[in-house]
């Protein structure tokens, strides 16, 4: 299948701390297709973030394999992974993680520093991304001068500015009030529908999960089969 973006086979992540072993992710198998918008849900500690981190190669699996666009992530070197992440992955954090000393414009421009674009092109592209998230009039503001919802929209602009294939979001509305959360979800929905981005979003909010085209549940490190959910959901 040529439109498979992410392929996880028997993906396992085990943390060993002191004498304790934690199966953060236990033998997960998952296929994500081009243009899908998947919401990952499940109780706290069920392994949602762990799965997302493995997809972004922010961590290495204990066993099993994960490939993105047919590229097995385990075979890449540190430097290759850094490059790969820059071009293919946009990551949105729960706590925004903007660089406080840089303006909205500079924050969004940052990932483009790793591309071949010149300064004018970078500026233009960053400006377009900020306009897309509705912050074309906040270019010179620093994160401190923005509301939480605005900060998260800047973070989304930063995640999409390199035009990545996949956008990974870990509880993107977790720190936001209801109205801002709605804006952010609308934005993510647009990225999926209008720009055909593949989206995987971790969320605790059933309302938010409805924006997605598909919901997958995790429980105690196990990725439940499609259509199945933990008892409490």
């Amino acid at each position, binding site marked *: 299948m040529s439109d498979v973006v992410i392929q996880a086979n028997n993906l396992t992540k085990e943390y060993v701390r002191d004498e304790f072993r934690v199966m953060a992710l236990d033998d997960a198998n998952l296929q994500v297709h081009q243009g899908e918008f998947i919401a990952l849900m499940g109780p706290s500690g069920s392994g949602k973030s762990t799965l997302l981190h493995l997809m972004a190669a922010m961590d290495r699996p204990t066993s099993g394999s994960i490939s993105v666009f047919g590229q097995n992530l385990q075979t890449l070197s540190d*430097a290759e992974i850094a490059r790969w*992440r820059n071009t293919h992955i946009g*990551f949105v954090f729960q706590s925004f993680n903007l660089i406080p000393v840089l303006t909205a414009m500079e924050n969004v421009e940052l990932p483009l520093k790793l591309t071949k674009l010149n300064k004018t092109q970078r500026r233009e592209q960053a400006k377009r991304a900020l306009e897309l998230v509705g912050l074309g009039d906040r270019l010179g503001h620093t994160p401190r001068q923005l509301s939480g919802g605005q900060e998260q929209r800047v973070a989304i602009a930063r995640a999409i500015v390199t035009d990545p294939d996949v956008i990974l979001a870990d509880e993107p509305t977790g720190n936001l009030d209801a109205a801002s959360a709605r804006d952010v979800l609308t934005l993510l929905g647009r990225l999926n529908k209008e720009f055909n981005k593949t989206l995987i979003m971790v969320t605790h909010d059933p309302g938010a999960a409805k924006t997605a085209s598909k919901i997958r549940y995790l429980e105690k490190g196990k990725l439940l089969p499609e259509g199945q959910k933990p008892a409490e959901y």
Partner: protein
Amino acid sequence: MKIPISYNIRNLIARRTTTIMTALGIALTVAVLLSVFALVEGLRSSLVSTGDPLNLLVTRKGSTAELNSSMTPEQFQVIKVKPGIAKLPNGEPMASLELVTVIVLESPDNPSGINITMRGLNLTGAAMRESVKVSEGRLFQPGKREIVVGKGVAKRYPTARIGSKIDLGRGQWEVVGILDGGRSASNSEIFCDLAQLAADQNRETGLSSVLLRATDEVAKQALINDLTSDRRLNVDAVSERAYYESQTGAAAPIQFLGIFVAVIMSIGSSFAAMNTMYAAVARRAPEIGTLRVLGFSKPGILASFMIESLLLSLLGGIIGCLLVLPLNNFTTGIGSFTTFSEITFDFRITPEIMLSGIIFALVMGLIGGLFPAFSAARKQILTALKQN
């Protein structure tokens, strides 16, 4: 650079208090080192710019300085007719018999007095020192107890002003002029009439040295060979420049102490920079994680923190240079073991000295930044994101 330098500059500004404290520590270290360099450079340039490159200094064989040399008028008669000596316009050979003694002058900061070189010479000797000019008053007159003082001496000793009289053993000497010797060692000396000084000191037959001017470089070497190998004369002849340059050693103890203190301080400053940078790395751990997620590599993170540390130390280096700048041309004196008297000179801060200060600062920044930058680069993305 991948991660923009403005990111580092803004962070330095954001934590301005630590930035300034750390930079000041580096600045003080640089200032100590540069003061020593400026002192040594001032002394060196005052000594090497003394005299014409063709000048020769003739002293008794085995004497290390003019002061412990002795020369008779008979020896002088033999020396002055040697071949290869340049002539004055009036046909006289450029050979000057001189008497050098040390006198004590008092100053407000040295109530017990400081040794100053007093040089008796004839008008030929004065004429041979083309770079030495009478800037105020006039030259001494032969046969009179008159003195002209170097401007360095005049600046530091209020008793050595025009019109004032100085008591020296047999009589009072009147200050009639001030000498401007450019940057040369003549600024530290007092000039007077040879015969008058010799009479006062009972040294009519035991003078000190002879200053000669060779016609050219080849003749200079020939003269040196001729004079030093003449058994009858029993004298040494050296280039005047070489003679003065060898006195640069007078600054060696201060140089050693200064460099020693600067090195000790630099260890402290490097640790301060390291401490500051470790704190920055710790505080910005989530940012480091974020940068990595955006695609910046480990070497990129390392370079960014190194640059930040270097910028910090560069700031310190610049402040250090600014701190010592007022020292430039500040006149001071240093005791010389060769002449047993004081050499007056100006601190000299050259662009090379400032550059060395900046480099010294950057080395501190490099050493201080290395470990923190490595620790930043080594951080695991997830661990970094979770900190704070």
